[in-house]
């Protein structure tokens, strides 16, 4: 069984040129989709494949597509979320820079499936090179007739535009992203109505992650059963894991879902400098920390959930035995505090409180009771905020205290002996 699905050709030189992409089997899925399947049949196929969203929440993609109204007086939109701001995550960039046509082909097929004629790629502003690569790939695809008016003689117009963000993590949240695309401050919207019904320009809108969409051509090429046969029963296909931190070979590793963390660590050539594992974020900074006790955990949606964490975006951040957990949590709390959009008070005030308490602990001015204070602030934030960013801010706090309370106590008593990180 081939391990790589999405990144199969991403290392091929010139894969971003349409000729090379086609030589490697590209743009076969789109004509097949248009000629052999009705839009509904594609939605069913994707549903049968078991593909779940790769942007963080893991919602079944086919089900989500099914929520788009079949008929609509307003145009429908597809939006690709390429904001990639979750600390630790760098997989979408690998797809965009390595195999942009795979994403474009996936978007063209997805647009056909949901009945969209216009799609946007919302790419984080810092990815200037990625944006340029996408724009030229889109132009190539349009010239070749895979995008634009009357795509491949189907009578359908399908086009893609690239929209650059401007440096705000919250714009990765899908409704904030839509506000940003509409030229507003990127603040989350109240749900319902959900974007599938009232999204971009108050029209039905499907928002999917880059990796999710890049899987679509492969599902058309090889079938739903093939895809469902990879990974685990409820987490099908592969996942691109981004491994960073204290490993010998950081980078992107695509493997079938359900691989053990231990195996994954081996792929990254183990912990650097012969040290021992202390802890890891399994799916980005918004997912609760796990420890060396979870070495054998399977990396898929359900196993990680059972262990009290999440697969998230698949960003694995590894920390060795010498790292200070308090400092790590403090750094992330500062991140969430700074990136909070300020719309709702539990998140706006709560993250600021958390940051203040962490600051005094880091300044060796921690007080007795600060650990419980952090927990109680987190408790007040959790579940009370407008969007999941507030919850996310509490994850590193609660999980690091759960497993490393002693380190917090050492800090407060002025006895932390961890190396700097």
């Amino acid at each position: 069984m081939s391990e790589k699905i999405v990144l199969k050709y991403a290392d091929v030189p010139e894969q971003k040129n349409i000729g090379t992409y086609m030589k490697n089997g590209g743009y076969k899925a789109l004509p097949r989709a248009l000629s052999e399947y009705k839009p509904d049949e594609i939605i069913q196929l994707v549903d049968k494949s078991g593909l779940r969203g790769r942007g963080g929440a893991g919602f079944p993609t086919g089900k989500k597509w099914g929520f788009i109204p079949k008929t609509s007086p307003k145009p429908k939109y597809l939006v690709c979320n390429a904001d990639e701001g979750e600390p630790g995550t760098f997989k979408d960039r690998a797809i965009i820079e390595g195999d942009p046509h795979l994403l474009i082909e996936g978007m063209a097929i997805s647009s056909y499936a949901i009945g969209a004629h216009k799609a946007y790629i919302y790419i984080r502003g810092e990815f200037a090179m990625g944006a340029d690569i996408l724009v030229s790939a889109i132009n190539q695809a349009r010239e070749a007739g895979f995008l634009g008016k009357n795509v491949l003689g189907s009578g359908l117009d399908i086009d893609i535009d690239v929209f650059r963000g401007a440096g705000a993590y919250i714009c990765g949240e899908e409704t904030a992203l839509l506000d940003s695309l509409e030229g507003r401050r990127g603040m989350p919207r109240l749900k319902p109505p959900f974007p599938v019904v009232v999204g971009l320009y108050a029209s039905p809108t499907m928002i999917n992650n880059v990796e999710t969409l890049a899987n679509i051509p492969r599902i058309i090429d090889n079938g739903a059963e093939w895809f469902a046969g990879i990974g685990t029963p409820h987490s099908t296909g592969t996942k691109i894991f981004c491994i960073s931190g204290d490993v010998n070979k950081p980078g992107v590793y695509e493997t079938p879902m359900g691989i053990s963390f231990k195996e994954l660590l081996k792929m990254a050539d183990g912990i650097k400098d012969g040290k021992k594992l202390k802890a890891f974020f399994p799916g980005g900074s918004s997912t609760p920390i796990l420890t060396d006790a979870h070495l054998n955990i399977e990396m898929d949606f359900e196993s990680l959930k059972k262990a009290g964490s999440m697969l998230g975006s698949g960003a694995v951040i590894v920390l060795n035995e010498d790292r200070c957990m308090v400092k790590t949590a403090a750094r992330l709390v500062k991140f969430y505090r700074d990136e909070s959009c300020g719309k709702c008070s539990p998140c706006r005030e709560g993250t600021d409180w958390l940051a203040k308490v962490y600051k005094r602990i880091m300044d060796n001015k921690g007080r007795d009771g600060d650990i419980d204070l952090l927990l109680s602030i987190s408790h007040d934030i959790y579940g009370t905020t407008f969007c999941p960013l507030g919850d996310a801010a509490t994850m590193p706090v609660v999980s690091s205290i759960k497993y490393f309370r002693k380190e917090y106590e050492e800090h407060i008593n002025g006895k932390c002996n961890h190396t700097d990180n």
Partner: protein
Amino acid sequence: MENSINTLLEKDFQGILKRYNTPRSAILPMLQFVQKKYGYISKENVETVADVLGLSSTEIGSVLSFYGMFNTSPSAQYMIYVCSNVSCGLHGAEKIITFLENRLNIKEGQITVDGKFALRTVECLGACGGAPVVQINNTYYENMTNEKMEKIISEMEKQ
């Protein structure tokens, strides 16, 4: 005035405007265009954007202030952004920042007197596999070390 900066800008803006469903959606692309051209977005240019789009300059200013990537005062020739999030932190981002502060004789958040370099820390740049990561203008430099940084800076000093 036929040739005023703003008349020239307006011409470019019409091209941008055409691509969007609503004038509002052209705000970020226009601000990005201005910043690329002048390095920062002046009050005057905020007004030009507002005029072209038929929106108030307060509205444009409010959008502008939400996003971290816009400069509202003249920026340096080389904007140096050092990622300081966790993965880069584990690989010595703090050392790179200290090195740059000493090398450029400025503090994080400041700009050199000659306007050549500015130093800022930023959140995760989405390139953690190459930590520590430094972005200078639009280019990413990965697996940075003080030695590599020194080479890049001295090259840029000659420019």
